[in-house]
């Protein structure tokens, strides 16, 4: 087969092989070689990132059109790799503390990353379906990984049941899409719709789009399909929350962008209004719901719902100006990864075996005992709120810019106003950190845990997120309209020396 173009899936393969390697290492060296597994995971993710960068500007169509590689896919692959990296970096301290069996943990992490990587590059309904399920199954399991904790398993069961329920809709949608076109390949489907004049099948297409939207809305957590999000985010082990809040979101949105504006552009009359309504509901609903939260993980969960709303607005805009909106979405996803993981990572740093500090009241007065952590958490909050000069602002700027440009003025206005509501709860965190005095004496162990070797990974993750959250706000030169230009330069350099 000449058109395999295996290089197009090097990152995916790397991640999958990494998972197998961890699994194998576990069998060979025993299941508790935590450091080894971590390093393997990090290496796999790094290589995946490296492969992505090496093939940065390449466009390819591999495996009989089952997967493709283009700049958008590359960007998404990079985001997935980075998220995996960050997720892995966040994990060891927590996993250690709660006695996770590390081999399976990292295996599942990498398998899910592999699924995500395939999802964002898939160009075929079957491919997308299977990869989506791969990542879902892994994430279900990871959510329930603290099997002795009620919250974790409860979250996982809810996630699983509702996820499977949504999968039903998604598959049904796939079925109708197939029924409408007789093909599962996106390119063929797109051609079919672009050609127009369809027979009785046109009705199937509309049904299919609706059902697909339902299924995918669940995955991205759009209101009213969002209700699992807070429970799962709260129940899941915090590193997993961090990981999936960005990685699952990025891959799901990657797929959504691939599917709706690119593949189903011909049907935009059907899905654009729905998507707009979903975006509006999600932006406002997510922000309003977050207002009532006292638990930080839950708060961030609703905040992630709200961010999904902004992104949905971007997807809707992509129906009018695909390039610009795509770039804005990708940029947003990238920035979001850093700021959201950063926030969770700070929470993880604050955790101790004795107590998880996930409530707002636990943060009171933290700026006096842990000034740096408080400053960093505030930074992430402000970034999430979209205050310049953070990346959160730049991302919002591009995204709402695209929405305005695409003519969604009302949506953009309402969305950005809802972000003011959002600012309130992000500021609540800053209030707790800086303006309230601690309700309980602050124990010193977080500092100690930050000093431990595996805490180093976490510290690195926090700092990386912080630096990039700001950097993407200040520098943010979209080369390819997607990534900072020096990254582009770096790629050129690597390609040249290959």
């Amino acid at each position: 087969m000449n058109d395999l173009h295996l290089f197009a899936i090097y990152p995916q393969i790397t991640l999958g092989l990494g998972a197998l390697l961890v699994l194998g290492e576990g069998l060979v060296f025993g299941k508790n070689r935590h450091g080894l597994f971590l390093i393997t995971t990090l290496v796999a993710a790094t290589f995946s990132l490296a492969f992505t960068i090496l093939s940065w500007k390449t466009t390819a169509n591999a495996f009989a059109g089952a997967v493709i590689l283009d700049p958008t896919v590359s960007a998404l692959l990079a985001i997935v790799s980075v998220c995996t990296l960050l997720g892995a970096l966040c994990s060891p301290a927590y996993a250690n503390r709660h006695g996770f069996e590390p081999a399976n943990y990292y295996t599942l992490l990498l398998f899910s990353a592999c699924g995500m990587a395939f999802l964002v590059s898939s160009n075929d309904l079957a491919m997308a379906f299977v990869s989506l399920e791969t990542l879902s199954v892994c994430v279900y399991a990871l959510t329930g990984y603290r099997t002795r904790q009620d919250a974790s398993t409860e979250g996982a069961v809810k996630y699983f049941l509702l996820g499977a329920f949504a999968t039903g809709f998604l598959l049904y949608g796939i079925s109708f899409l197939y029924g409408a076109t007789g093909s599962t390949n996106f390119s063929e489907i797109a051609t079919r719709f672009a050609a127009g004049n369809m027979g009785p099948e046109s009705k199937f297409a509309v049904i299919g789009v609706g059902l697909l939207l339902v299924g995918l809305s669940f995955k991205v957590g759009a209101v009213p399909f969002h209700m699992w999000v807070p429970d799962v985010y709260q129940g899941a082990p915090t590193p997993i929350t961090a990981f999936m809040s960005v990685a699952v979101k990025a891959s799901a949105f990657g797929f959504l962008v691939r599917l709706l504006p690119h593949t189903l552009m011909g049907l935009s009359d059907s899905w654009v209004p729905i998507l707009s309504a979903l975006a509006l509901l999600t932006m406002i609903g997510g922000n309003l719901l977050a207002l009532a939260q006292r638990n930080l993980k839950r708060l961030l969960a609703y905040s992630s719902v709200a961010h999904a709303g902004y992104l949905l607005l971007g997807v809707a805009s992509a129906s009018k100006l695909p390039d610009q909106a795509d770039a804005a979405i990708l940029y947003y996803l990238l920035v979001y990864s850093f700021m959201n993981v950063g926030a969770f990572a700070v929470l993880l740093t604050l955790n101790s075996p004795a107590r998880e500090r996930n409530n707002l009241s636990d943060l009171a007065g933290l700026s006096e005992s842990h000034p740096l952590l408080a400053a960093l958490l505030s930074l992430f909050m402000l970034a999430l709120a979209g205050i310049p000069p953070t990346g959160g602002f730049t991302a919002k700027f591009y995204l709402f810019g695209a929405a305005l440009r695409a003519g969604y003025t009302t949506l953009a206005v309402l969305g950005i106003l809802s972000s003011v509501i959002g600012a309130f709860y992000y500021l609540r965190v800053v209030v707790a950190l800086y303006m309230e005095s601690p309700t309980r004496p602050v124990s010193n162990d977080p500092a100690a845990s930050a000093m431990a070797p595996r805490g180093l990974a976490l510290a690195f993750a926090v700092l990386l997120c912080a630096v990039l959250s700001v950097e993407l706000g200040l520098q943010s030169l979209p080369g390819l309209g997607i990534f900072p230009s020096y990254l582009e330069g770096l790629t050129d350099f690597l390609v040249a020396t290959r």
Partner: protein
Amino acid sequence: MPVLSIILFLPSVTAVAILLFGRGESGASIARALALLGSAAAFLLSLTLWAGFDAATAQMQFAEAFRWLPSWGISYRLGVDGMSLLYVILTTFLTPIVVLAGFSAVERRVPLYMASLLFLETGMLGAFLATDLVLFYIFWEAMLIPMYLLIGVWGGERRIYAAVKFFLYTMAGSVLMLLAIVALAYLHYESSGEISFNLAHLLRTSIAYENQRWLFGAFAFAFAIKVPLFPLHTWLPDAHVEAPTGGSVILAGVLLKLGTYGLVRFAFPLFPAAAVTFAPWLSLLAVIGVIYGALVALVQPDIKKLVAYSSVSHLGFCVLGICAFTPEALEGALYQGLNHGLSTGALFLLVGVLYERRHTREIAQFGGLAKVIPLYAAALVAVSLSSIALPGTNGFVGEFLILLGTFTGNVPKTTYMAAGAALGVILGAVYMLWTVQRVLFGPVTHAVNEKLPDLTKREQFYLAPVLVLIFIMGVVPGPFLKTFKASTKEFLDRFSKTAVLASLPEADASGRAQVSQILSKWKEDSRSEVASADSASK
């Protein structure tokens, strides 16, 4: 030498240094010393701007530019002109004073306090200096964070409520402005084919009337909140009351000015047709604010709240002056901004002095202080006189020019507006003097006040320059007013009938008709002025 950038970032760099080195036992003193040094250096540097400033041109001076995000047309672009020069200096002038005032007022977390102040200074300077709209917005919004911390960490009892309210209120306005900025850039792109946020480029864009109105609304809304224009002012009393002295001084002294500055720098010139449409309404709100603020200030038991409402009143004058489209009123408005910065800043400093000694801001807690602390009393009286615009103080020059220019302005009903606002002159005297009387005069009503120490040397040191300036600016306003001239002329040239119509695209026939209709209601006799400006520009 990129002097603007140096002035702009010197405070931030100092702030970072403070955060890095201001640790441990001596952290507080290091922070204080560094903050004073940094802010004073910025002030001295900013004076060189004035020295090298060419008042004859409306061009941006000391301009710096480099392409920052070229694919989005965003550039890092700084410059000063007559409208911003003195505000930049006001900012750099007030900051060291506030730093000094914070030496004793702030005891908790001094490094963070000083760093916040300095970051805030960068934010404010950036907003005054930026000539790229996105850059402006970044500074405009980033400024909220340190101010938020200043209020929230070192504020009074309800500081958190006030801080959050301040933040959200302002943000609610400014996010809409952000959208408007983006929309403006797209409109520019559609007409010119290049994407740019450069103010100079955007000023050349002709925008349909309908769009102008929306965009102007968004801009004006954001700025009106900041000013604050009645009825968008309710964040101010809370913020002022709860903020620590330094925060109040900066808030009143500089932050509010950004509102009026934004109007003259962006909202009005960018959308002339919309500006002439809405100016009468803005003036109406301003006049209501003048009277309303004064009346409400009259009955405040809390002295900081009183000053806060008085700010609403004073800033009403500024907006009124801007909306009159006469050179006198506009220069008066710009001048009044400076005055308010000094006199209200000084008032807050003085209130802070009292607060430090007595930990209360309730007027009823004082009385008869003139006997106990005569120097303080003299300072308070002097500042009050500036606040009520006594001739010989800076306040008079500003209010006089505004009222004169508005009274004889071109906009319909402007005469009534000026007459209404002139009532504020009476009311200002009422509330200010009543306050002075209740605080300073009569017998000493509370035994605790018998032993209050008078102004310390440090307090005298930082109050003196403000007081001296108040009188200098009242007696010799010439050098200050001179810097405004070229820029105000350029501003007003945009509001001649032809220029306003030229801001609308040829195709927008109905818009042009509507605007002509509006302009035809302008006083006929103002045409002479306008016509001469037109002929001069041709």
